C-alpha cells in the first residue's frame, strides 16, 4: 500500500509538471488565435474596439503566469474552463469526444496486445523458421509505414474499392442520433480500429519475440527439454509465465502509442474523437481545450504505468515486497 501511495504522489507531481510544461509551450506560441479562428472576411469587417474585445476573449494579452495560476486553480476545483472553439465547458467537450474515441482505442489496444502477443510467441518459438521470418518481415514492414498511410490504404481498399465499410465519421450519414444503433457505431469504428490495431501489433510482436527467445535460450528451458518436456508444455509452463510480465509492461506502455496513432487515424477517417479534437485545438490556438486534452491524456498514460507497476506485484511474487526495479 505504501508503494501505491508513493507512486501516486510521484504521479501527481509529474502531472503538475506536465501541465506547467504544456502551458509554457502553449503560451509561448506566436500563433494569433484571432487570425486562426475568426475568419479573414469577418476580421476585416470589425472595428478596433471589436478586435480588442475578441483579444480579451482569446486571452491574447494576459501575462502567462497569471493565466496558468487561474487555470490551475480552476482545474483543481474540477473546472477545466470553457473551450474557446466550441464555446462549451471543456469537460463536456472532452467527455463527448472521449466516448467516441473510447470504443476505438480500447478495441485497438486489446486487439493489438492480444494479436501482437500471439504473433510474438509464434515467432519466438519457431525461431529462424518460415513463420518467424514471415512475422519478422511483416512487422518490419508495418513499423516502416506511417500510420496514416496505412489508414489511407485500408480506406482505399475497403471503403472506396470494395465498398464494404463506410468512408468515415462515427455515425451513418443523416441518421438521427436516437436511431443510431450500436451496430452502426461498430461499423463505423471498424476501419479506424483495424488500422490502429495493425499498426500496434508490430512493436508488441517484435518485443515479445525477443523475450521469448531469451526464455528459450535460458538454462531452465534447456533442462526442461533435456528432461523430455514437449514444446507445448514448455510453452505453457515456462515461456508464458516469464514473458507475461514484460508483455504486460509493454502493453500498458503502448497506451501512449495508441493515443498517438488515434490522432492520425481519426484525421483520415474524419472520426470525431479525442485525437481530431487535439489537432483542431492545436491548429486553432484553443488554450483551455489543448490543456485539458494534454492533462487528461497524461493522466491516462500515467495511470497505465501505475497499473503496470501494480500488476507487477500481482503477477510476480518476487516483486511484492515493494522493491523497485533496478
Amino acid at each position, binding site marked *: 500500500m505504501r508503494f501505491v501511495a508513493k507512486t501516486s504522489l510521484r504521479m501527481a507531481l509529474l502531472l503538475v509538471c506536465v501541465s506547467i510544461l504544456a502551458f509554457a509551450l502553449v503560451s509561448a506560441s506566436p500563433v494569433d488565435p484571432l*487570425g486562426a479562428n475568426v475568419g479573414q472576411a*469577418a476580421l476585416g469587417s470589425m472595428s478596433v474596439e471589436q478586435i480588442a474585445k475578441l483579444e480579451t476573449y482569446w486571452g491574447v494579452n494576459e501575462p502567462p503566469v497569471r493565466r496558468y495560476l487561474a487555470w490551475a486553480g480552476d482545474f483543481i476545483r474540477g473546472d477545466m474552463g470553457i473551450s474557446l472553439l466550441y464555446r462549451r465547458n471543456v469537460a463536456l467537450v472532452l467527455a463527448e469526444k472521449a466516448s467516441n474515441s473510447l470504443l476505438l482505442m*480500447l478495441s485497438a489496444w*486489446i486487439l493489438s496486445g492480444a494479436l501482437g502477443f500471439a504473433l510474438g510467441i509464434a515467432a519466438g518459438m519457431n525461431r529462424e523458421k518460415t513463420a518467424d521470418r514471415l512475422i519478422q518481415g511483416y512487422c518490419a514492414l508495418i513499423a516502416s509505414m506511417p500510420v496514416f498511410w496505412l489508414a489511407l490504404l485500408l480506406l482505399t481498399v475497403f471503403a472506396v474499392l470494395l465498398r464494404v465499410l463506410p468512408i468515415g465519421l462515427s455515425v451513418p450519414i443523416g441518421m*438521427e*442520433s436516437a436511431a443510431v444503433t450500436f451496430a452502426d457505431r*461498430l461499423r463505423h469504428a471498424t476501419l479506424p480500429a483495424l488500422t490502429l490495431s495493425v499498426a500496434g501489433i508490430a512493436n508488441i510482436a517484435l518485443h515479445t519475440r525477443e523475450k521469448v527467445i531469451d526464455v528459450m535460450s535460458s538454462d531452465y528451458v534447456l533442462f526442461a527439454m533435456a528432461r523430455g518436456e514437449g514444446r507445448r508444455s514448455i510453452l505453457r509452463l515456462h515461456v508464458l509465465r516469464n514473458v507475461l510480465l514484460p508483455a504486460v509492461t509493454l502493453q500498458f506502455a503502448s497506451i501512449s502509442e495508441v493515443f498517438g496513432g488515434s490522432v492520425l487515424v481519426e484525421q483520415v477517417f474524419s472520426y470525431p474523437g479525442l485525437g481530431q479534437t487535439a489537432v483542431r485545438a492545436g491548429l486553432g490556438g484553443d488554450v483551455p481545450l489543448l490543456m485539458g486534452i494534454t492533462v487528461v491524456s497524461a493522466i491516462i498514460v500515467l495511470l497505465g504505468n501505475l497499473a503496470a507497476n501494480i500488476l507487477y506485484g500481482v503477477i510476480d511474487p518476487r516483486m511484492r515486497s515493494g522493491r523497485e526495479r533496478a
Partner: protein
Amino acid sequence: MTRVKRLTIMILAVAPAIMVGCAGQPKHVAEPPTETEKASDSVVVVMGMNSEPEAGFDPAYGWGAGEHVHEPLIQSTLTATTADLQITNDLATDVGSSDNGLLWTVKIRGDVTFTDGEPLTAADVAFTYNTVKNTSSVNDFTMLDKAVAVDDTTVEFHMTRPFSIWPYTMAIVGIVPAHAYSPDYGGQPVGSGRYMLKQWDKGQQIILEANPDYYGKAPQMKKVTILFMSEDSSFAAVKAGEADLAYTAASFAEQAIKGYSLFSAASVDNRVLNLPAIPFDGEKGNDVTSDPAFRKAVNIGLNREQMILAVLDGHGTPAYRACDRMPWYNPNAVVEYDQKAAIALLEQAGWIAGADGIREKEGLRAEVNILYPAGDSVRQALAAECCNQLKVLGIAAAFEGVGWDVAYDRAQSEIMTWGWGAHTPMELYNIYHTMSDTGLATYSPYANAAVDRLMDEALAADSLEKSYALWQQAQEGMIEDVPWMWLVNIDHLYWVREGLAVAEQKLHPHGHGWSIVNNVDRWSWSA
C-alpha cells in the same frame, strides 16, 4: 493460479466489456425516431464543417452574420435583402432616419409571435440590439449607441455616427425574445422565423421544422435536415444517395453522378491580390508594386478567363471589385485582357526585359512573392496560376503558403491572396479607407484622400440611393490606382437530386455555407 491473480484477470476481462457497452449508448434523450422516408416536403442538405454554428443559433455569436452572412431562419430580421441586394422590409413596416442620420425610427408589425406563444414587440427588438452591441463577437455595432422601444411597435436606434447603410446591418440581426434569452440561448433558440430548431447533434447534423405560426407565407419545405461534412464525405453522401443537396468543389464537379445534376450559384465570393501602393519604408510597402504603371499593367495583363478555366474548371466569373453586380458597384471597373497593352505599359514605365526575360527598372528586378493562406487550396492554385501568368509578362513570381498569424503583417509589404464578398458596402470602406492612426488602409498600404472623402459622404448620405451613387463615385479613384487587383468570383457548386427545385438564389457572399438555404422555404419537389 493464486486467488489474487484470478481475481485480477476476471476484472480485466469484464471491465472492457462494461466500458464498451456504456460507450455504445446513444447520447441523446430518446425521442421517437422519425422515419427518414422520402417525404415531398422534407429535404436533406449537406454543408461544410465550418458552417456549423459552434456557439449555437445566437445572433450575438455569429448566427446569420460574421464570416458568412445569411438569413437566420430561426429568427426574423427587421429588413431583408432581395435577390439583387436591394433592401426590403421583413418585420419592419416603415424605416426612416432623421436628417442628421443619428436617429433611425423603425415601425414593426404587431401580429408576430414567437414560437413559445409570446408576442414579438419593440421591446424584444431593442433588447436584441442592445445585447448584440455588448456581446457580439463577430459584428461591428460601434455605430449604434442604444436601441429604445418607444411603444409596442416602434423602435428608435440612436447612432453614434451617421450610417446610411444601417438597413444592411439590420438585415442580418435575428430578433431574440427578451423573456427567453440567456447564455444558453444558442442551444435552445426561440424565434419568430420560418423554422424552429427540432434537433441538434453537435458535430453531425441539425434538423429544422417549419414554424406553423409564421406570419408570412407558410414554408413549403416542412422539414430541413442539415448535415456537416468535409468535402469528400459530402461527395460520398451524394454517391450513396443520402443527400438531396450537397456542396462540392470544382475538383469534384467533373464527375457524373446518377440521379444528380450540378447546380451552380453565382456569387460575390471573390479572390483578390493586394498590391502595396507605397515604396518599402522598412516595414510596409513594396518597391515593385508601388509603381502605378506596374499595377495597371498587371491588372490588364492577367487573363482572368484562363484563370477561371484552369483553376475553377470554368465555375466562376471574373471579378473587378469586391462588390461586382451589387447596387453600389461601379461597372467602369471592368478591364479587357490585353497582354500587348500590358507589356507596352510596362516598357513605357521603364521596365525593360533583361537577358533572362525578367524585367528591370533602374536596377530593381520585377520580382514578387505571392502569399496565400496555408490551408486554402483554391487560393493556392490561384496564386500558382498568377505566378505562371506573370512570368509571361516578364515578372518573376513565386508563391508561398503562410499561416494567418503572419499573413496580415506580411501582406503589408508583399502580395497576398485574400477572399472578400459581403452583402454590405461597408466592406469597401474597410478595405480602401485609411485608418486614422496610420493614414493608410488597413490590409494593404494605400491612401487616396478623394476616395476617403467620398466614402465618408456615402455613409452620411440621407438615403440609400444617394449613398449608392457616392460609393460608385468613390470607386473611380480605385479604378485609377488599382491598389487591389480583383481576380475571380467563385461559383458555389452543389449536387442537386433530380426533382428538387431550388429557388432562385441571390448572389452568394463569401463562404460556402448557409446562404444556399436562405429560401429553403420556397423549394419544392416536382413529382
